[in-house]
């Protein structure tokens, strides 16, 4: 399972929301973090999140069984490690 952790602060809430549009993705809570999980790759479109660049490039809090293969102005792509 690929898991991406994102801290629940106002700027970040669009990230799990956009990620969850993929039916393979589930979003749970671990304390104040969103745990965004999928059996395979997770992709989040930056423009859909509306995140400012500084927010976008600092939104990843942790990676469970996962590695980032793309994190640029277009998208965040996390695949199984």
């Amino acid at each position, binding site marked *: 399972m690929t*898991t991406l*952790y994102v*801290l*629940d*602060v*106002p*700027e970040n809430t669009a990230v799990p929301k956009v990620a969850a549009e993929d039916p393979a993705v589930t979003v749970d809570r*671990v*304390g*104040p*973090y969103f745990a965004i999980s999928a059996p395979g790759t997770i992709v989040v479109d930056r423009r859909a999140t509306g995140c*400012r660049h*500084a*927010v976008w490039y*600092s939104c*990843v*809090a*942790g*990676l*469970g069984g996962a*590695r*980032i293969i793309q994190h640029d102005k277009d998208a965040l792509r996390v695949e199984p*490690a």
Partner: protein
Amino acid sequence: MEHLVRGVDHAAFPTFDPAATVRFYRDVLGFPVVHSICAAGWGREQHPDFIHFFFDIGGGDRIAFFYYFGLEPVHDQPQGDAYAGFGADVPGWFVDSRHLAVHVDSEEHLMEYRRRLDASDWPVEMQVQHETIESIYTHDPNGYMVEITRALRPVTPQEDLDAELTIEALVEVASGPEPTLGKLLTRKAELIVERAAAWEEGVRS
């Protein structure tokens, strides 16, 4: 451990251009001169005559400068500041990572400093919204990067937890071989699973 300190008394820097330094901090930014020390007759060879002067940066805190009479600039590197020079091969972002940030209460106050700087010889070079703050930047007459910033929102308690977990993961990963952000985020995920749920229960109880 008890937290006994009470903020910045003063941060001090050398200057080779005291006139421009006074123009920048006192006349452009409006930071009052609050203290100065004339140190004379200590012997040029051992210790040049110098002036140590202070500006009020609010909240009882001060920024201070040393001007040593007769001392020539100590480097002629293309990058850096009065204190330290860096060769052309050193990235600018690395050079500017050392800076002083002072804070204001509102967007109106941030924009007031933007107006003052833009009308001066040291206009604002960047205005950036970070995660929780918005900042303007310029370099002072000595080449030191100065930031003025305002909070976009208060920092939340969960951000303190997140910082704690980040630093714990950082210390572990940076103490080991070949530290990478990927290793840090993997270790931090383990710490989140171990600690974060309990943190929320603690807040609720």
